[in-house]
């Protein structure tokens, strides 16, 4: 019988007083101490920006610590590159897979370390047997010779795991492994992880899904504000405990959705179809209507056409067919500035790439959709004073934590950055707000704040189209729910007495409503 974790077991990897400061002055890790023992599943949890990913990047040699040291199996090491990390037996499965789509599974797994025959030709037989060995030990099923691009996400993830294992990984780091998976695939993944630790491997598991942590981890390290709050035995903490450790205070949900009679129809989408360049039918006959004073949610797993739908509605993507009726005018194919002028506001999914300009100030980011209007500009002159004044007001109203209104947006945390975007998109004159994943990847407190604001503008009579993969969020604030599955609306539900499980069935495509039930959403 081995001693319990947290005792005298062999340490697989340790961080001792690690501090990391990025060139822009962000302190991502501050005196971080953590020790992961051999054969455990060690979960690292924390809000976005708490420093989890940075710590993993340091372990894998992508970033170098500003100070502090790393020990691997008790030996002090300097890890200067992923190559060195792999040589030390550290493997990493990134959140976004690093695979060559047009190569087969086997080729991806052995990329760069292919067994050779004479005259440099690849020894495919040997390749198969090597991978087969590993796969058998873990009870994996992998179609070795199929192209990666045709494989489902769960399988791609296993390929990533095998890739690390054949390179000799003893310590496997998984960065948010479950975020792309369906509930069924998550269960399969956990089976794999259990088998890995039975084979004496060590798993470091980064996530912010606490039910999963409780389900799989031996020990849990909680990070907050670039520091480690503590490491706990799984059995010693409840989910609520972990949340409170993560955010550093008591937490309760307190958003109330008061019943409200929706107003006039503001937006009608009719028979919207979209084909991607490669011919894939991404959106199939999408029809729905949106009324003033309601939140209509579009739920679904990521990658079921949400991104394309939003981009078409906001003019960022062209070449779709069908009608988008806004006050009776068809705005299909209009430019973003026309659609904005017609009264549609947009909180984009990707705040860094689309939602702001990182190197401009908060103030300058807040007026990008109205810089040309009074009081920010006259015919010619840009009135900086008024812009700053407005920004100060917004920073207060939306609780943006920043040194001043002229701070560069780059310096803000994800949550505060999102608040800047939300502040801009909610305070313009638009009657319709399209919010695409408005709380994705930001801290609990900011998420809560943003949901409250969405509720507030709904009560004030704006129409909100909420696109979300977060079921809790959908059930918490929406009035009606459309479920999108493989580019089709498969269900239209009123948010009355439905559960996450109900929604889950539709999202996975297990269940679907009849045409008539769905039609109701258009002819309300």
């Amino acid at each position, binding site marked *: 019988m081995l001693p319990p974790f947290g005792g005298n077991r062999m340490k697989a990897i340790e961080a001792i007083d690690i501090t990391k400061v990025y060139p822009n002055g962000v302190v991502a890790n501050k005196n971080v101490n953590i020790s992961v023992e051999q054969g455990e599943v060690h979960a690292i949890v924390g809000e976005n920006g708490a420093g989890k990913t940075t710590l993993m990047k340091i372990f894998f040699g992508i970033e170098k610590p500003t100070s502090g040291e790393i020990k691997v199996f008790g030996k002090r090491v300097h890890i200067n590159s992923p190559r060195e990390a792999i040589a030390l037996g550290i493997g990493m499965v990134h959140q976004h897979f690093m695979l060559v789509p047009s190569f087969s599974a086997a080729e991806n797994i052995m990329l760069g370390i292919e067994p050779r025959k004479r005259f440099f030709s690849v020894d495919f037989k040997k390749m198969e047997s090597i991978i087969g060995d590993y796969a058998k030990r873990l009870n994996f099923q992998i179609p070795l010779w199929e192209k990666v691009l045709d494989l489902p996400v769960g399988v791609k993830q296993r390929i990533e795991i095998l890739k690390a294992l054949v390179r000799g990984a003893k310590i496997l780091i998984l960065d948010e492994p479950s975020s792309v998976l369906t509930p069924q695939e998550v269960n399969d993944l956990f089976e794999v992880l259990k088998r890995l630790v039975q084979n004496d491997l060590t798993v470091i598991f980064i996530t912010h899904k606490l039910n999963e942590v409780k389900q799989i981890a031996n020990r849990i390290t909680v990070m907050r504000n670039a520091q480690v709050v503590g490491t706990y035995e799984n059995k010693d903490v409840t989910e609520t405990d972990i949340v409170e450790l993560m955010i550093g205070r008591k937490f309760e949900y307190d958003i109330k959705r008061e019943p409200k009679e929706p107003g006039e129809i503001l937006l009608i989408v009719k028979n919207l179809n979209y084909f991607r360049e490669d011919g894939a039918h991404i959106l199939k006959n999408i029809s729905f209507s949106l009324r003033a004073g309601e939140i209509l949610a579009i739920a679904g797993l990521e990658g079921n056409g949400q991104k394309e739908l939003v981009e078409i509605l906001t003019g960022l993507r062209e070449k779709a067919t069908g009608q988008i009726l806004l006050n009776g005018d068809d705005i299909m194919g209009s430019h973003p500035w026309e659609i904005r002028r017609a009264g549609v506001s947009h909180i984009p999914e990707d705040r860094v790439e689309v939602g702001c*300009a990182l190197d401009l100030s908060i103030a300058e980011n807040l007026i990008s959709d109205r810089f040309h209007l009074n009081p920010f500009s006259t015919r010619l002159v840009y009135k900086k004073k008024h812009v700053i004044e407005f920004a100060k007001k917004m920073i207060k109203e939306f609780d943006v934590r920043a040194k001043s209104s002229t701070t560069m947006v780059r310096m803000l945390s994800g949550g505060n950055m999102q608040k800047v975007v939300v502040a801009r998109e909610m305070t313009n004159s638009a009657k319709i707000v399209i919010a695409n994943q408005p709380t994705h990847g930001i801290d609990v407190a900011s998420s809560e704040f943003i949901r409250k604001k969405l509720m507030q503008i709904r009560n004030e009579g704006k129409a909100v189209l909420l696109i979300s993969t977060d079921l809790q969020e959908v059930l918490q604030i929406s009035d009606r729910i459309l479920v999108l599955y493989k580019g089709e609306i498969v269900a239209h539900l009123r948010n009355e007495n439905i559960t996450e499980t109900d929604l889950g069935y539709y999202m996975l495509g297990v269940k679907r409503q009849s045409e008539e039930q769905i039609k109701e959403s258009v002819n309300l």
Partner: protein
Amino acid sequence: MKRTLLLLEFTRFVITVGIALLIGYIFLLFIADEPTEAFKLFLTGPMTTQRRFFEFLNNAVPLMMTGLALSIVFQSKVFNIGAEGQLFFGAFGAMIFALKAPQIPWLHLVITLVGAALFGSLWAFVPAILKAKWKASELVSSLMMNYISYFLVLFLVNNYFRDKTAGALVSYRFPQSAWLSTLSRYRLNSGLFVAVALSVLVGWLLYRTKWGYQIRVVGANKKFGYYSGIKTINVIFWVQILSGAIAGLAGGIELTAMYRRFVWQSLPGYGFDGIIVAILARNNPFLVIPSALFIAYLRIGANIMGRTTGIAPEIVVVLQSIMILLITAEALLGRFKQKAVAKEAMKSE
């Protein structure tokens, strides 16, 4: 924090200049008979006489204007490096208007300079429209336009405007009404005032008008600009036209003030040096003024050294280039910056 970084940036600049000078000096040890004397000439040369001082200022004029032209396109993250060709074509435009327009005092000069700007922007129009309509890389097309400008202008000048009575391949002399005046006996180019005023004006345009705001937004994040409802294609188009006009004007000023004919048989190189000026100024129009003065000082200092010591002019150019290379190397001493940032960040935590 901001002040620390600014100070650091300045210190970094001083240190890099120091290192560059040191390397320059070591270089001189090998090739000059009296390295210390040569080096002193290099450092203080432009300050020793009024004539040299004005030579240095005159050299800064076209550099300032091309630096300005490039700083605004770079601000919008457009890499139109066609300032050289635009300047050349602008100079050609100035020549046409100087020789052909009615010789009304003042007005003639104004028409000549406006013509130069017009020709410059005409040259910028081609890459700009190719970019806007067909997303052609402005880097490639503007570079090609430089060659076209060079050979086309030479062909036209040498075949149709050549002054056969002059001893060299130059155009006819401009009438006096198209002269931009020079000051004092040593001929200070009064275009200097135009260049400085224009820098301030463009700085104001960039930071204090709504067009400038759009340019900065598009430069900071084009996708964000488009999403926010800015007509990014238009912004990118017009910024190139404006840049071309400034570069063209630079050519016009150079000819009307300094030469009063079309004299160039090779590209003068101001457009390429303008890239250095813009980068050194971090694309800030206000900083273009000191930046252009600095580069001009290096150039003239080296020229004076070459003239008085007999060091081969080729070596002088090599030396200049090494120094500019070092000074614009962003990463040099980056480690100190990183350390200071880390220290500062931990302190404020």
